[in-house]
């Protein structure tokens, strides 16, 4: 029986070196990093080092790094934190996001919408890439936050974060220099005061961290979320970068941890693991993954008729391949492949609890039938060419079997 893992966008295994550095912080160096005695101080030292590694990875100051329980919490903190800091109950404020965000962002925005916040959901192009002009078109005087994911988790497409960062910078400098009395807005003076405050730019960079430029300065982001378990680190830990000066209200209350932005006892072992995981990113061989992914796509086209690529080929991380196999259903393929020892994922309606096809595939204009037969393959560094060959052979058999089984 084979054991082939092609679902690295869902989660990655913990790297052995990462696990190793974490272990002492469970039973030996177990002090509370907030304690003043040496047990605590020893733990704090490890936390500080981990924070420094993350700061180094993102090119920021250590006090701009907040550890959270994961990227979902980091996204919640970023979006709700900015909105709550802006007196959202009294004023009409506006945020911009995209139709194909991860639920951590999308559902947070929908929740805020119910609370009276105005939200614009920008549609990506059919290539799965957001156009900067489409973001620009949505910006209004009362826009205070833009949240655009760095890499889409299903189709792996890379979004123009740097360009959106530049746009936000431009708009912000115009806002500062603009005379409020010439504002075309009809809002009351007091409201205008606040709405002329800057726009913050947040990105969920969970799927980008292994593959893309992550320097927050170069990208021009104010808030950025990453996750441990997508980068060969542990589950249950994430990071939110919060640029100095960002007006953000905490959403979890308690002690004064994490620069008073996120209450809760510091999770020393997971933080240490996160620090190691980002440190190891610099040493990764992306060419190998890219070679395998390109080979996989080539072999699929060669061996299976009627497969189509979902999302841009060029603007895509090297790990991701998302295809639609016409005339079959994705969950059946997933199950059949699983029986053959291969793990992939699908955007088929049948596989979702809601029986809705993937919102990502719908947002890029796929038909229901194409979404029905969609497969996401996300490669990791342990994968081999032999595994790809075996997968293609298995998928070919299954596609033939299910196509033959379907009503003509």
């Amino acid at each position: 029986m084979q054991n082939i893992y092609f679902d690295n966008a869902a989660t990655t295994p913990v790297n052995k070196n990462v696990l190793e550095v974490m272990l002492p912080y469970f039973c030996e160096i177990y002090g509370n990093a907030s304690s003043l005695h040496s047990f605590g101080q020893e733990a704090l030292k490890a936390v500080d080092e981990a924070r420094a590694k993350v700061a180094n990875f993102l090119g920021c100051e250590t006090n701009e790094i907040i550890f959270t329980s994961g990227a979902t919490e980091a996204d919640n903190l970023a979006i709700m934190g900015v909105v709550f800091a802006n007196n959202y109950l009294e004023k009409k404020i506006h945020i911009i996001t995209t139709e194909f965000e991860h639920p951590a962002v999308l559902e947070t925005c929908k929740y805020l919408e119910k609370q009276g916040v105005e939200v614009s959901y920008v549609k990506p192009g059919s290539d799965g890439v957001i156009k900067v002009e489409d973001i620009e078109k949505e910006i209004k005087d009362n826009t205070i936050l833009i949240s655009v994911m760095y890499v889409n988790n299903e189709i792996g497409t890379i979004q123009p974060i740097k360009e959106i960062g530049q746009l936000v910078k431009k708009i912000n400098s115009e806002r500062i220099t603009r005379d409020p009395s010439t504002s075309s807005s009809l809002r009351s003076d007091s409201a205008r005061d606040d709405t002329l405050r800057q726009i913050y730019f947040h990105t969920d960079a969970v799927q980008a961290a292994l593959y893309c430029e992550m320097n927050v300065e170069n990208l021009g982001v104010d808030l950025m979320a990453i996750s441990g378990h997508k980068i060969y680190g542990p589950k249950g830990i994430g990071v939110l970068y919060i640029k100095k000066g960002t007006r953000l209200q905490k959403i979890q209350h308690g002690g004064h941890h994490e620069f008073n932005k996120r209450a809760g006892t510091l999770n020393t072992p997971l933080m240490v693991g996160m620090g190691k995981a980002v440190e190891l990113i610099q040493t990764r061989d992306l060419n190998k993954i890219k070679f395998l992914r390109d080979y996989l796509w080539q072999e699929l086209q060669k061996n299976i008729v009627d497969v189509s690529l979902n999302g841009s080929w060029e603007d895509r991380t090297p790990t991701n391949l998302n295809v639609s196999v016409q005339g079959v259903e994705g969950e059946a393929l997933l199950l059949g492949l699983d029986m053959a020892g291969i793990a992939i994922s699908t955007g088929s309606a049948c596989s979702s609890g809601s029986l809705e096809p993937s919102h990502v595939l719908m947002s890029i204009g796929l038909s229901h039938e194409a979404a029905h037969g969609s497969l996401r393959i996300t490669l990791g560094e342990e994968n081999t060419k032999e595994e790809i060959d075996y997968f293609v052979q298995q998928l070919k058999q299954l596609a033939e079997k299910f196509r033959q089984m379907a009503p003509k």
Partner: protein
Amino acid sequence: MYSSIVLEHFKNPHNQGVILDADAVGQVGNPVCGDIMKLYLKFSEADKDKSLEERVIEDIKFETLGCGAAIASTSMLTDLAKGKTVAEALKITKQNVADALGGLPAVKIHCSILATEALEKAVKNYSASLERPSPAV
């Protein structure tokens, strides 16, 4: 998520295929997730003078485009219906199908409904054709 019986029927479905000279054919689709099921029935020649309800389903085959539960449900339905009279077969419920499969996840019950609906549809199509001996185009 799926019982071992579901997985077995998914892997090696029973009565999968087409009956070229079928007496009755029924196809249903699921607007929710895009699933399609088609059933072919062949009645016993021996009881051709009996009423439709009393006729025995001698052979039954299915075609399905859908998830694992859909494939297993139609496979199981064909097992349950084969050799039964039409009246008996029409009494098979989604619950009977799900139970025989060792249970289905709640979100997959609609896949088993589809199987029973395909059978009803096939019988309905057939009786409609009986009422119109020379079928209108």
